């Protein structure tokens, strides 16, 4: 029975996992990355709006906004090669049903110190539907280019970085000053530091280690990739702040991603572990103890494109046309504390020191730097 030793074990090969791996390798540590999928970046890192947040998205949570804005610059410097900057990102406030209006959004941008240039809503939106429109500085990233970068960089550390794909963790236990993480087929790794970066699967990992779960709810989300028409090609729209939508370039793929607050989450589960009716049909492949990949699942829900596109067309001028290309599905955990102010804090929890067990949960790509502190400490 193989029992390899490393300085750190990282669970999950999404952006947070690979960032942590590279960070540690560069510090001269040896790491093992355990990933249940056959490839990295197959779930939430790839399947999301790809927004490199600059804070605009959180007009009711100045703390989240300022944190995003703070990391925005750093992310663009470090990973500028995968960032699509070549489009106008238009934020607008809906005249009806928005929690934030034009004046409030402006005041918020000023408070957060992020640029916003006011535009005429009628130039983009149908009459009366938006009371404010703003040109903002916000970009989208390309997950595949980002992945290529990480794989290349990690390739320089062949001896100290070991990534195991298809690794299904079945047991995590403490053995003296180390944690031992084992798979069902008898492979084990041990280290004095474990980072749980499993995102949607985080509570299942915590349960195995015997720690208290995050208080989260789960949403099965659909991102739709669209072919943008001529007028839309170099523009992104985000209508705030309520049951609205956004459509914007999806990294450098040439597609636009379409999402809508009311239609992107298909089903939700309020419990600490994900229980969904569709799991019954998977024959045990997906359960509350192990979430399979929704995007590859035959039981994934039918697309909500008719709803999302109708909503977008209701707002956008008719010249902004687009057509359906494909749907991407992924499971999204949402911290329950963030319902009221819609904040998206990055939560890092430490479960004991020496051996150290840390868990990270974040819904944003550019707050990955929050990991630095906990990684340097361990």
């Amino acid at each position, binding site marked *: 029975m193989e029992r390899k030793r490393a300085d750190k074990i990282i669970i999950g090969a999404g952006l947070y996992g690979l960032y942590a791996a590279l960070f540690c390798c560069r510090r001269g540590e040896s790491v093992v990355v355990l990933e249940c999928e056959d490839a990295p970046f197959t779930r939430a890192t790839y399947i999301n709006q790809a927004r490199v947040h600059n804070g605009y998205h959180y007009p009711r949570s100045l703390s989240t906004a300022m944190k995003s804005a703070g990391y925005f610059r750093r992310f663009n410097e470090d990973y500028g090669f995968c960032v699509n900057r070549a489009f106008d990102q238009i934020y607008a406030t809906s005249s009806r*049903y928005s929690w934030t209006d034009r004046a409030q959004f402006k005041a918020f941008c000023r408070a957060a110190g992020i640029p916003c240039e006011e535009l005429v809503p009628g130039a983009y939106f149908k009459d009366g539907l938006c009371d404010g429109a703003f040109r903002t500085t916000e970009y989208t990233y390309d997950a595949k280019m980002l992945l290529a970068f990480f794989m290349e960089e990690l390739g320089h550390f062949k001896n100290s970085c070991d990534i195991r794909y298809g690794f299904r963790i079945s047991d995590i236990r403490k053995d003296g000053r180390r944690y031992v993480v084992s798979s069902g087929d008898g492979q084990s790794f041990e280290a004095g530091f474990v980072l749980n970066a499993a995102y949607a699967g985080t509570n299942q990992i915590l349960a195995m280690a015997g720690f208290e779960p995050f208080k989260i709810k789960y949403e099965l989300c659909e991102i739709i990739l669209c072919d943008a028409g001529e007028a839309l090609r170099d523009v992104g729209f985000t209508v705030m702040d309520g*049951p609205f939508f956004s459509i914007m370039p999806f990294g450098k793929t040439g597609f636009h991603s379409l999402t809508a607050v*009311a239609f992107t989450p298909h089903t939700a589960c309020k419990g600490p572990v994900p229980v969904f009716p569709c799991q019954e049909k998977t024959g045990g492949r997906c359960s509350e103890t192990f979430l399979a990949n929704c995007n590859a699942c035959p039981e994934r829900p039918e697309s909500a*494109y*008719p*709803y999302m596109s*109708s*909503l977008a067309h209701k707002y956008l001028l008719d010249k902004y046309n687009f057509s359906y290309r494909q749907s*991407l599905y992924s499971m999204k955990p949402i911290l329950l504390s963030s319902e009221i102010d819609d904040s998206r804090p990055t939560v890092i929890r430490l479960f004991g020191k020496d051996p150290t067990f840390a868990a990270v949960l974040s819904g944003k790509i550019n707050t990955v730097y929050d990991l630095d502190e906990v990684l340097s400490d361990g």
Partner: protein
Amino acid sequence: MAENFDKKSFDEKNFDKEKNFDKEKNFVSAVIYVHNAKERIGAFLSRVREVLEKNFEHAEIICVNDASDDGSADAIRACSRCAGNVGITLVTMSFFHGLELAMTAGVDLAIGDFVFEFDHAVMDYSPDTIMAVYRRALEGYDVVSASPDKKEKLSSRIFYRVFDRFSDYSYGMATESFRILSRRAINRVSSMNETILYRKALYAHCGLPIDTQKYEPVRPEGEAGGSSGRASDKRERAYRSGLAVDSLIVFTKIGYRFSMMMTVGMMLISIFVLGYTVITYLTAHPVEGWTTTVLFLAVSFFGLFGILTVIVKYLQLLIDMVFKRKHYSFENIEKLTK
């Protein structure tokens, strides 16, 4: 690895392959006004849903719960569990707003190309009427209303009669159960007015082609006495009579005409009394004059009060429309199904 990645995610799903060739391609929304309709809403919602699911590829239903306190919301939630491909959303108003504002709130949320407005949850028509109204709209009418082909209530008759008599524009309005609006009509009406006091009147003079479909009223299933359930709520009744008065003031010239009449009458009386006083003075029986003075005072004060009432009403309406409840306020939006 990268190829594998591609293949897995870029899996096509084609909408046109669905077996819905005979279904309508337009996206329709149905907004249902719900106020203390626990008994009726379940059956009503199922009927509407069945019609939409049968005839449309994609549709949504928005139930506007106008601060019901009888558990209507639970009835809606229970009913939405059996929904198929029609999305059901429940908007709960923070406090009682009345039909007009609550319906506006629902229509604002709707995303359909066509939007049905169901003013009450009583289906005294056959479900086919819904599709008949939709098809009529497709023929080129931006607003098509469904109106029961029966004798209207006396109060309604008086209201519509007075409305037509005192307005410049011939509205030709009648009691309606539901209507369909095109997106064009919705946009037109919302750009015309910031506050919508009485939608029916606005639709009627929005300048787009409109039509009314008469239907043979049938007794709603599971209900004993015709449309007795309708507007039986005390608050709703009070709201409706208040709305009638407000609408007459805003959309007709009844207030102006009344004050005009009073003014002219008073002027005539004052001229007459003036002449009379002069004559009495000349014929030198001044003591007797007090009768006419009192008469004059009585009449003019009556008229003044009449005018004052109208002015006060106008002012109150202006305040209502400009300052008070500029928008509706909703408590939450619940997406019950997709």
